């Protein structure tokens, strides 16, 4: 029998029993939807964790002084950033350096001890920070030594009754007046959290006016950060950076590494291992749902075959071969599987939106997941429909005689 006729018969069989067909597709859809939703929640959770915990740090090479050894080669210098930038070239997305110290600060109320950060480069990109009030430093301001500062969200809340009023007002740091040009919004990443209780100043301004550190020379920083374009280039970048810094600081290869290279990727891997465990757990539950759906679908189909036994025999009396009947039932399963997948993807998207808006659970339903749900639903439908289809194909045509 030509394929088109087979498709016609399968579609006819589905459309003439719309309620039963809908229930069958919904059964598969529920299974596929649970798999898609579970996967979407896990993907969303992973993305959010990565962003919250690391932000751009997940792709960053973090260089600090190796405090385990005291030698003449450290700490890193701001000028090292230029050398790193030149040699790492196309791998680099952003770079920043900062030094830190403590100071007493006073806004329109009491005095508090705050943490000062002298920053240079793309500090905002490195920490994934957004400005809530006022503005950020311009490149010229960052390179200069004006007494201007930006406040972290918590610092602004402590120093000023209304953080928005801080913009344009002076803040006295160790008794020296400094103009506030902007206030950061609440920290959303761990790296931004570092600046929440801090006062940020241009690197040179901090060195000139506010830093009482005897430990660091004017060009020296507590940390250099090089944000790379892709995470997988960190290892290669780390080797290059070690070679450059040794050269710049005159440290021979025979000497212990004068700098520490923070590998945020290792932390990320540890976190991902935990997420994988959770993934396996949630995926197992979703798979059980899919299996339950497939069993339910198989039951429905088997019952449909029993109900349609005489119709099948009549089709055979009219010339259908067993293989025609088998193919018709498998096509029905395939079509219902596709419908189920569409329903499942829709349900997953709807529930995902609901879950995301009601409970603030991150959900990321992407086209690949929708395709996986499609494949799962079709696979379950075809697998569960195989036995009933083979039973239908084995029906005796002589049953057509019995009314």
């Amino acid at each position, binding site marked *: 029998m030509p394929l088109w006729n087979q498709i016609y018969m399968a579609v006819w069989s589905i459309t003439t*029993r719309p309620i039963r067909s809908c229930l069958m597709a919904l059964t598969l859809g529920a299974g596929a939807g649970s798999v898609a939703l579970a996967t979407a929640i896990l993907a969303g959770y992973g993305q959010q964790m990565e962003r919250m915990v690391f932000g751009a740090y997940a792709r960053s090479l973090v260089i600090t002084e190796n405090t385990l050894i005291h030698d003449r080669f450290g700490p890193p210098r701001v000028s090292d950033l230029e050398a790193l930038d030149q040699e790492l070239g196309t791998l680099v997305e952003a770079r920043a350096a900062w030094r830190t110290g403590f100071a007493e600060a006073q806004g329109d109320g009491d005095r508090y001890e705050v943490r000062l950060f002298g920053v240079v480069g793309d500090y905002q990109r490195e920490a994934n920070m957004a400005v809530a009030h006022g503005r950020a430093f311009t490149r010229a301001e960052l390179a200069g030594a004006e007494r201007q500062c930006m406040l972290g969200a918590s610092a602004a809340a402590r120093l000023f009754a209304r953080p928005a009023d801080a913009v344009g007002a002076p803040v006295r740091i160790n008794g020296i007046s400094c103009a506030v040009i902007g206030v950061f919004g609440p920290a959303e990443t761990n790296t931004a959290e570092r600046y929440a209780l801090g006062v940020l100043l241009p690197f040179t301004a901090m060195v000139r006016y506010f830093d009482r550190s005897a430990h660091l020379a004017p060009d020296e920083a507590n940390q250099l950060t090089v944000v790379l374009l892709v995470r997988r280039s960190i290892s290669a970048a780390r080797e290059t950076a070690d070679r450059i810094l040794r050269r710049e600081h005159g440290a021979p290869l025979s000497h212990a590494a004068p700098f520490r290279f923070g590998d945020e990727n290792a932390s990320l891997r540890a976190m991902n291992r935990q997420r994988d465990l959770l993934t396996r757990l949630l995926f197992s539950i979703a798979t059980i749902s899919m299996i339950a759906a497939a069993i339910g679908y198989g039951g429905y189909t088997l019952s449909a075959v029993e109900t349609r036994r005489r119709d099948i025999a*009549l089709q055979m009396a009219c*010339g259908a071969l067993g293989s025609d009947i088998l193919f018709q039932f498998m096509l029905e399963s395939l079509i219902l599987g596709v419908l189920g997948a569409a329903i499942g993807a829709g349900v997953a998207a709807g529930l995902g939106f609901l879950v995301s808006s009601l409970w603030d659970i991150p959900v990321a339903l992407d086209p690949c997941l929708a395709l996986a749900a499609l494949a799962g639903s079709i696979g379950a439908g075809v697998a569960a429909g195989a036995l009933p289809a083979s039973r239908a194909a084995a029906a005796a*045509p*002589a049953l057509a*005689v019995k009314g």
Partner: protein
Amino acid sequence: MAGECIAVVGRSGAGKSTFLTILGLLDQPDAGTVSFLGEDVSGIPPAALARRRRGRIGYLFQDAGLIARMRVLDTVCLPMRYAGRAADDRKAAAYKALDAVELSEKANRRVEELSGGERQRVGLARALALGPQLLVCDEPSAALDEQTTGVIGRLLSDHANRGGCVILATHDPLLMPIADRMIRFTNGAAIEEAKP
């Protein structure tokens, strides 16, 4: 047997329907041989049996044997669909068969919307649409009125006159006159009798 109409009679449970099932290649006998168009088809696999009956044998069942949710036109087209006939051919042949049973105006109705007599006529249209060499009818006039029985008898007779073979299980005195020969089933044995 071509061009002949054979009546099969006997009491209920005598084996008429089983005989027709085997004759129509819907089943195999437990013992003995079956020959169809000169070929011994005993013991051949079900798929091979299905290929031999495809397009060559038409059936008219006691209850018409229609699929309730199917449209009349689709019902008549069904054997032609399995025989691989082109869509246009199918439609033309189906309307011709429906014209013959005077039901072409109900081609788009669903079978379940038809009366008993109309269903039996649709069943006959389906059986005749492919012009089968053998037409097997199992009590086709049971529960039908005289007029419908008359129409069915005429169509069966026409088919035999066109060279087809009609085998008819019936008790209906209105259908008996169209039979050329009669086979009576008694105590499990078939006895051939002369024209009823």
